């Protein structure tokens, strides 16, 4: 294995980053570090202490919406492979596609563990309209073949949104849901690192790209914030939690240099 299990892509120069972290070999080493002893995203012997009653129902709603987000990410990553400008980038995106597929799988598995017999039907019933609108727009950008805009929407906006939500949820989730979310967050870090590095390099070569991405962000931010609003309202979260989540998302995007 050539890829270290714990590795911060942000610390690499663009050249070193591309040479090292785009490969299957790196992905292979990275995921072995945190998936080796897991089945469907959590330890096999982990004791389930899932919430009951209304809290369980809220958790099911949240997980159903995470499945919508992960399906968008899976289809987005699959489509981006065609748009990607070079082979190493295509290979990285293939690792991202399988990561997104895994996230969808572990979330559906968690829904089944919570007693949901037909996750597909439940996801369709509970899907958040703003998140569905975000998914449609993301896939339009991917289909349009605009690499900068599509990668920004997928690996910066969508991943930052998921990162913020999962991070907040994991802090107060039951142990199994927390393990599942923490595994997903580790993958998201790799995806965000790739988007930041790839777009950062392109902006350096052509600063005009920044203005184009600002327009994409303005359009998608509205959908992201509506998604947070709808998701947290359905979970019965207080207004302060919505503000925290919005702030966390904005900080993540701005930390990546896309203010």
């Amino acid at each position, binding site marked *: 294995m050539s890829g270290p299990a714990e590795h911060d892509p942000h610390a690499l120069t663009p050249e070193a980053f591309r040479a090292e972290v785009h490969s299957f070999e790196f992905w292979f080493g990275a995921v072995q570090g945190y998936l080796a002893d897991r089945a469907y995203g959590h330890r096999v012997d982990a004791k389930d202490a899932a919430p009951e009653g209304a809290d369980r129902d809220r958790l099911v709603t949240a997980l159903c919406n995470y499945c919508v987000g992960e*399906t968008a990410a899976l289809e987005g990553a699959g489509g981006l492979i065609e748009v990607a400008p070079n*082979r190493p980038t295509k290979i990285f*995106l*293939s690792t991202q*596609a*399988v990561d997104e597929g*895994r996230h969808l799988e572990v979330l559906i598995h968690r829904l089944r563990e919570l007693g949901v017999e037909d996750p597909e039907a439940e996801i369709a019933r509970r899907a958040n309209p703003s998140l569905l609108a975000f998914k449609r727009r993301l896939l339009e950008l991917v289909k349009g073949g605009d690499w900068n805009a599509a990668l920004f929407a997928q690996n910066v906006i969508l991943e930052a949104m998921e990162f913020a939500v999962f991070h907040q949820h994991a802090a107060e989730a039951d142990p199994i849901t927390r393990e599942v979310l923490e595994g997903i967050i580790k993958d998201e870090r790799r995806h965000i690192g790739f988007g930041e590095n790839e777009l950062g390099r392109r902006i350096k070569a052509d600063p005009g790209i920044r203005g184009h991405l600002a327009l994409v962000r303005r359009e998608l931010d509205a959908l992201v914030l509506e998604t947070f609003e709808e998701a947290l309202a359905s979970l019965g979260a207080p207004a302060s939690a919505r503000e925290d989540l919005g702030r966390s998302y904005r900080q993540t995007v701005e930390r990546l240099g896309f203010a």
Partner: protein
Amino acid sequence: MTDFLKGYDIQYWLESAPQGYLMETEYGHGEKEREPELVLEDPTLREQAIRTTVQLVVGERCALAASSGLINAAPDEASKRFLATQTLDEARHVEVFTHRLYDLGVKKSELESVISQFANPHLVHFAEALLEKVDQKDFIAGVVGQNVILEGMAFNVFEMMHAGNKEANPKFGHTLAGTIADERRHVGFGENRIGGLIREHPERKGDIEKLQREMSYHMLATFGDSFRNGPSPEQVGQIMREHGQEPQASEQEWQGVKLGQANPEELEAVLSDTILKEFKIRLERIGIEYQTPTAP
């Protein structure tokens, strides 16, 4: 359908591939395994190895583009997840075979020109025809082209190459063994998933059979060209003697033929027989009647 797809989920894939037969490998082979000196030193054998590997890279690039494009065309999320694993498998194959080209002395700056120089035109035509179906989001045609025709036919070639290399070139043999294990999963998915879809959409049978007739022509033509361009056992023996090595008749057999002693025509004949026999069985399983390949 759900139960059959359970055997193709990502958890299964993680346990069988990255945590199974790919453990302790680096770019598909053992960390210390190297290409044989003779292959690196002799220009004829080296060019033959490069030519063969280029066809693998071209085929795998096509498979990567097709499987990623099919994620969005898949009618259900379990198939999307399987195709995500297949996408990563194909990307790994592109990576390991590209790495072999570097091991054979191809410079990174020359990679694309070497691939253009040696890529078989029939294989390029096949890739164009398949990717056209994928662009149209035609899931049935895309999976038949990719998982049944491309991978189903290449499967036998990989097996034959593996039998011929596992002793003579363990590094390449090891790389092929991992690829074969992946392909077996892809072909299984194609047969199982498409069989059900053809039963649901009998109106597609006619155009899928036409697709099979045209696409399998290009695959067979690619294999035929590969054998005609390869050195005979006598030429290999001569090269070995020139390098001070005494040729030893290999006893490695595949489908009853001694691979180290058969001439290219014999190899092509046994491969064609095997491919067509197994290909017909696969087509029967998905409810498609085999059509004799014709030039499109």
